[in-house]
């Protein structure tokens, strides 16, 4: 039974695309058949983050409008056989997406994949609405920062009212993915803590991804961080989140104990990591 998962946030720049690519890759690395769909028509970037930008021929809009068949538009990841990408169109506007067309493509994807990860654009316009429309579950990507939390709250409200599941009175699972978290700053009281955000948004926690240079490095080279640097803290956070999505009970504390790194441990810790 396939699952349609929307990765959304309301606010831009919080890490939706990075998280879509990383969660998709982590699920695929766990043996699931995964497609990641870019809904950001006109401003696609998932292809670039996943390192497939040179191979895009057809896109979601081409499939909806009948210019291409779905298999022609799907791009198989070169590193991971169970991971595919359906890119967004770079040249059309969001009106090229129709609810009927998106629904048709999602139905067809359900026949081929275990997981359909919908990378939502920022905002609450048509693209974002259609990305969540057919979702079975929603991952709300949030930074521990006031405007991000507020926008997340608004998006949670929309998941509960604007999705097909919500309209049919079915349950739609919602999960919080906290990204760009800095436990040292949270400990010093400079940043909202995990519990603060959880208390405000009141949805279950899927994962905590610490602010990390490994995420930038991975996007520079066009590889999800779980593939590029599986040992990094960010990759482990996404891998743990994927395991939770698959129903495993993974403890949060073991994954990433809050740590204070001094100057010396940073210096030597880095060498140890490189060796």
């Amino acid at each position: 039974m396939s699952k349609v998962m929307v990765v959304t946030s309301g606010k831009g720049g919080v890490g939706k695309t990075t998280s879509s690519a990383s969660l998709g890759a982590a699920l695929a690395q766990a043996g699931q058949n995964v497609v990641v769909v870019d809904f950001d028509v006109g401003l696609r970037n998932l292809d670039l983050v996943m390192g497939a930008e040179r191979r895009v021929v057809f896109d979601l809009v081409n499939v909806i409008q009948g210019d291409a068949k779905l298999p022609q538009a799907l791009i198989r990841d070169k590193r991971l056989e169970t991971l595919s990408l359906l890119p967004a169109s770079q040249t059309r506007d969001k009106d090229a997406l129709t609810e009927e067309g998106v629904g048709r493509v999602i139905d067809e994807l359900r026949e081929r994949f275990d997981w359909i990860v919908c990378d939502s654009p920022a905002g609450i316009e048509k693209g974002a609405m259609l990305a969540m429309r057919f979702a079975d579950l929603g991952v709300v990507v949030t930074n521990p920062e006031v405007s991000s939390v507020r926008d997340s709250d608004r998006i949670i409200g929309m998941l509960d009212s604007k999705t097909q599941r919500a309209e049919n009175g079915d349950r739609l699972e919602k999960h919080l993915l906290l990204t760009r978290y800095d436990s040292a700053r949270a400990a010093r009281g400079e940043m909202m803590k995990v519990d603060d955000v959880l208390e405000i948004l009141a949805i279950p926690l899927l994962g905590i991804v610490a602010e990390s240079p490994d995420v930038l490095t991975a996007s520079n080279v066009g590889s999800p961080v779980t593939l590029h640097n599986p040992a990094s803290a960010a990759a482990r956070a996404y891998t743990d989140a994927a395991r939770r999505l698959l129903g495993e009970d993974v403890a949060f504390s073991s994954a990433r104990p809050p740590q204070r790194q001094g100057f010396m441990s940073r210096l030597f810790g880095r060498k140890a990591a490189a060796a």
Partner: protein
Amino acid sequence: MSFLKFFMRNRSAPVARDRLQVLLAHERALSGRPDLVAVLQQEILAVIAKHIPIDRDKVVVKLDRGSQVSTLEIDIEMPDEALARG
């Protein structure tokens, strides 16, 4: 060796720059005719379909954008019986 790795560790920025240069060069060149590949595919298939019946589901289109040369690959499966009649 780990000393070398220490300095090579984070040299991903040049990769990012190169990838963007290739991508943006292609995107800028194609502005104004964004569906070129789709149009090419349709016209090529139309020419072939005039002579041989082809199954549109069995057409594989691959593109590789390079910095110097790009390749467009269109694989069309032609059943033997169709060839025999043609």
